[in-house]
């Protein structure tokens, strides 16, 4: 009996060590973790533009393009992050660095994301100031997706060769978009207007007088809609909030189906550079960055 308990305890001790080892490995190798650690250790940041959101923004917006135009910019977006996570990250940033960015870009994909997801990204939650640790924080359970990303890195050159630049995750991998247009698709404006999480996010920006630019990101052909680009208005917030539908059939007509994608509606390094250039020009045309 005692022998059994001793062995079980040793096994659990081994499991705890395995968790610790896993955590150390993830901290060193996982892009999300690396990026999170970087963003928690800025030295007196003075960003004009912060990019938030999920993997669509993390892969698809190249901060360098905005830096080249004189804007201090960092891509804070995290793969799998909900809007609630973006809000928490922005709050943390302002609180920690006592600095308010002038612009916040929130790239979203209504065709891929749930706008009412209240969950906080595990990596963000794990590093949050007020987080109470419990059994559910066991690294192997909590950072499952990081483990799977690590496996991808082990087996795939493309994943090993990816890198972070000002928060953007750059992939050179190419996947062809072989989907077809669906002319019946409409821009689901209500999904944006009725999302409580999004309204909370806008409220926060409004509170700090930050210009909030919400962008429906270009996706694969089968996600594109036939509605106008906008801007669409949030009646509650007449100023400083813009919503653009950049996934209508016309805006992404520069996208090369053979070269610009890394995976399902996610832009690769080249696609992101092209998109960011056009995004900057588009903002200039619409005088967004003059605010």
């Amino acid at each position, binding site marked *: *009996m005692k022998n059994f308990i001793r062995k079980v305890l040793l096994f659990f001790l081994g499991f705890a060590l395995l968790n610790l080892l896993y955590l150390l490995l993830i901290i060193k190798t996982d892009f999300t973790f690396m990026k999170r650690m970087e963003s928690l250790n800025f030295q007196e940041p003075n960003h004009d533009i912060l990019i938030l959101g999920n993997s669509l923004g993390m892969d698809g917006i190249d901060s360098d393009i905005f830096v080249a135009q004189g804007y201090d910019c960092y891509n804070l977006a995290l793969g799998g992050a909900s809007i609630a996570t973006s809000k928490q990250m922005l709050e943390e940033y302002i609180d920690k660095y006592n600095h308010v960015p002038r612009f916040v870009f929130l790239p979203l994909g209504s065709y891929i994301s749930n706008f009412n997801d209240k969950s906080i990204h595990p990596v963000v939650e794990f590093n949050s100031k007020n987080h109470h640790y419990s059994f559910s924080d066991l690294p192997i359970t909590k950072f499952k997706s990081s483990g799977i990303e690590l496996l991808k890195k082990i087996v795939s050159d493309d994943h090993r060769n990816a890198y972070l630049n000002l928060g953007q995750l750059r992939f050179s991998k190419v996947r062809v978009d072989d989907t077809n247009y669906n002319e019946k698709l409409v821009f689901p404006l209500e999904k944006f207007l009725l999302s409580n999480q999004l309204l909370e996010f806008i409220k926060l920006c409004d509170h700090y007088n930050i210009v909030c630019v919400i962008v429906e990101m270009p996706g694969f052909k089968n996600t594109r809609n036939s509605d106008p680009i906008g801007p669409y208005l949030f009646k509650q917030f007449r100023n400083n909030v813009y919503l653009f539908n950049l996934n209508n059939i016309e805006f992404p007509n520069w996208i090369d189906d053979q070269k610009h994608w890394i995976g399902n509606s996610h832009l690769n390094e080249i696609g992101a550079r092209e998109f960011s250039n056009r995004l900057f020009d588009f903002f200039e045309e619409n005088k967004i960055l003059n605010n």
Partner: protein
Amino acid sequence: MLFNSIDFGIFLPIVFVIYWLISKKNISLQNLLLLVASYVFYGWWDWRFLLLVLFSTIVDFSIGIALENEKKELRRRILLWTSIAVNLGFLGFFKYYNFFIENFVDAFSFLGYSISHRSLGIILPVGISFYTFQTLSYTIDVYNGKLKTTRDFIAFAAFISFFPQLVAGPIERATNLLPQFCSERKFDYSKAIDGLRQILWGLFKKVVIADNCAEYANLIFNNSSNYSGSTLLLGAVLFTFQIYGDFSGYSDIAIGTSRLFGFSLMKNFAFPYFSRDIAEFWRRWHISLSTWFRDYLYIPLGGSRGGEWMKLKNTLIIFLVSGFWHGANWTFIVWGGLNAIYFFISSKIIKNSRNSDIVAKGRLLPSTREFMQILFTFSLTVFAWIFFRSDNMGHAASILDQIFSFSTISLPELLPYNLFILISILLIIEWGGRENQYGLEKLGLNWNRPLRLSFYYGCVLVIFLFGGKEQEFIYFQF
């Protein structure tokens, strides 16, 4: 409390340590502890229904004593039927009340009469079908003189509510489990280690296979009108693995947990998807329920005595009742009826070659003939599961309509390759271990210690990393 929850991960070690260290060699104290632990386990879900468990326990305990004291056959029979009426009455009310009312109203509407009715918002108590059958087995066995009445209420109550198998089986016979509560349990190191291995394998089947299959099967079945025949067929196959992983995984965890406390529960699954005919499948699937029906319904009805017609009638009854036991829906009854038809045809065709041994025993691979038999039997079960999983008969018909169309001759819209790999791992390990009690039983036992430990940690890692979104056990709803 779910087996695959953190709550249970804390609950189990606490009960285990108190059980062996504090109440060592004191059976009454151990039984009391198990009873309290079982009620906490059940009450974690909804404490109100504990009264129902307690009431059934008191009724059958009292009837058991009354049966022992009563010599007159008529009175004994009345006592037996009182127990059956009370237990099945609860089951009927909580599980079938709305079904009967709605079908009654529909039947009258069909005849041109209009009846107003109100369905009751009844919550189905978790595990009611399981513990009801378990407690009934006690009364019936006492009545038949197969079992002595127990006068130890705590032992009896602990037997009825034994937490590892309270909510989803295996449905234990009183003749097997109750005597274990009345005799001394000794801690057996090798049995406890074996129990842990079985729990590990059960968790793999539940968390990795069933929960991952569930995500796709739910997506496909819940949006069946959007998918082609090939995708719907894939959904049916994934549900086939989901229900196996879910239910046999639960049984493995239950049996393994019981072993930690010195109890032996009956085997509930014996690699059913390697069956060569449908009769063999039913000897290997949910064994505790199949044998319950055999012993307490089929044989009392006359079994196969009385010729072919009697056998046919009784078998049909068993399968229909078995279908109905699973839920108050026509889809379950059709599922049962379909299996009865399979059973008849199969028993006619393979009358002289009953597949009672283990497939390809002592060989690495099955023969081509065996492989084709396995594949054919598996296809039959997949077809039957479509009814089981569908919301109603119309839903099942629309799915079958798509499956038997030209849209099945195309690639499915969803191709979860990762899941195919995980299912392949399950099949390989189960095939390798098909001569044992469970797939993982002997795997790695002869390996050196570091390799064996690495294997266990590897299994734990796979469970944590590849586990699907937490889903409730399917059989909780039965």
